[in-house]
């Protein structure tokens, strides 16, 4: 099984303009992945499937991930001259930068013919709001068909080239995308009050007379 760096080099040898980068995976699992640019993603996928050395003919898993805007603090050491005229001092300078959020789709590929894997691909959208289109890999691996529909349904990623992109788990008229990190669930559906203070407070708005004994002995949690 080749390392991700070798796979990247093989891809770049055949498709020189493709945007391929290796994303290291910290932690003991060491399943490093390849980040693909959206423009050539389908060509790269076809190459990975048809190349005789890789033959990644089996797409096992397609997951969506939602990354919110993140503030990254970087600490750099700079030397600044001492205003009093002594030797230059080393100071730590913290720079903050905002990494904008994006939606990511992670593909796990295996090979049935050569019995190796996994090779992990990642595709990222430009942002979480309007530029959420990615190329669909369903024409390459049919197993992506239902799973990309699920990523569309729950995250809102639009897959260009998917034969039948519509909601799969939620009903068709549903709005919003439930698996996003900033999804706010509605509190106007019928549910059963559980003992906790904040849940009870929400439920009391809908069931004012349901819990006289419980309401009397419990105060809302701070």
């Amino acid at each position, binding site marked *: 099984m080749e390392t991700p760096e070798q796979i990247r080099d093989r891809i770049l040898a055949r498709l020189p303009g493709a945007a391929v980068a290796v994303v290291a995976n910290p932690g*003991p699992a060491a399943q490093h992945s390849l980040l693909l640019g959206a423009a050539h993603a389908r060509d790269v996928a076809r190459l990975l499937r048809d190349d005789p050395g890789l033959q990644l003919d089996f797409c096992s*898993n397609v997951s969506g991930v939602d990354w919110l805007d993140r503030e990254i603090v970087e600490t750099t050491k700079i030397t600044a001259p001492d205003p009093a005229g002594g030797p230059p001092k080393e100071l730590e300078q913290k720079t903050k930068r905002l990494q904008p959020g994006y939606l990511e789709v992670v593909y796990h590929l295996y090979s049935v013919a050569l*019995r190796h894997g996994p090779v992990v691909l990642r595709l990222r959208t430009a942002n979480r709001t309007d530029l959420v289109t990615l190329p669909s890999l369903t024409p390459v691996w049919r*197993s992506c068909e239902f799973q990309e529909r699920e990523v569309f349904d729950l995250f809102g990623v639009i897959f260009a080239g998917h034969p039948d992109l519509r909601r799969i*788990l939620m009903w068709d008229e549903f709005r919003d995308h439930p*698996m996003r990190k900033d999804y706010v669930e509605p509190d106007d559906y019928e549910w059963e009050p559980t003992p906790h203070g904040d849940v009870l407070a929400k439920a009391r708005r809908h069931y004012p007379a349901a819990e006289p004994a419980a309401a009397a002995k419990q105060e809302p949690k701070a």
Partner: protein
Amino acid sequence: MSVSDVSPLSSPPGPNVRAVHDEFHGDLLEVSMGPHHPSTHGVFRMIVTLDGETVTKLKPVFGYLHRNHEKIGENTSYLGSMPYTDRLDYLCSMTNNWAYALAVEKLSGQTVPERAEYLRIILAELTRLLNHTCLAGFLLQDSGASGTPLMYAFREREKILDLFEALSGSRMMCNYQRFGGCRADATPAWLDAARTLTDNYGGFLDEYEELLTGNEILMARTQGIGRLTAKLAIGAGITGPMLRAAGVAYDIRKVDGYGLYPRFNFRVPLGAHGDTYDRYMVRVLEMRESINILRQALRDIPDGPVMDPKAKLRGFRPKPGEAYGRIEGPKGEIGFFLISEGGPNPYRYRVRPPSFINLTILEDLCLGHSVADTVAILGSIDIVLGEVDR
């Protein structure tokens, strides 16, 4: 020409039956099979367009059992998600637990003691026995053998469930595996009971096969129905007995060699035609191989601890990173993809559900067959809605 002139129905079409008048194809009937249906293995809906009795289009619709399991996984600790994995494929909770524990152990780099690995294999093979027995029963039940094969299957399944209850406390929702081993040890009495069950199961399977395998009605209803080619199966991500019935020798127990499976001597049955009868026979043969593995495991299980001594129950925070762990569950490849950001809850918790992905080619298999065959084909795919919808 209106619908009522040519419709064979004696009563006007009801709310779930709609006649579609199409100039070129004559009258097509669109039937909604489900979600309330005794033969769809749960709340599963198929919108079938029929030309007479032949299926011309089939669209599966599911999501009726969607319980946002993945979102709950993001809001619950790693240990707290373990009972929820029981409820994915609710017939096979031990293997779901193992797949999740395997993924977390990959993520955190934990090791599992030998006795725990043997116990996991014993429980996984018992689960495979009960799942395939249930499948044979359900397939026959859906095909119209109203109850008899199913009740025999359930009678034997009860014995396995009694074993699970004695070990983990619960028949179906076992919540038994932990990260780094198993929750409780098996007593020698339990292992003896498991040995007795393994010895007797072969006799039950012989009787069951006498009832079913040579049955002309079963053969007429399932042979040649729903043929799946190997190329389509691999491309569509089909795994499990369905893939092997199409002739592809891909069993994750042999390919990945997780747990201690490389120590065991077992064969992987393959099908020659890829039809419904092959899917049924592959499962029966897999049951015989499972009995073989069980015999070996129960003979060789060593003494020792069942839990990694360094494993923490509370305050478990794996280092940042991600991992994908998969096992050969009875229905196919069940995998978990976890992303950790160093906190007590996973950042992303994804289940790779075999039943969901095996449904990709349902339409391909059913086209051209009659509506009664649809039920048999769906039965042989072996879906559980808890896993399809999560």
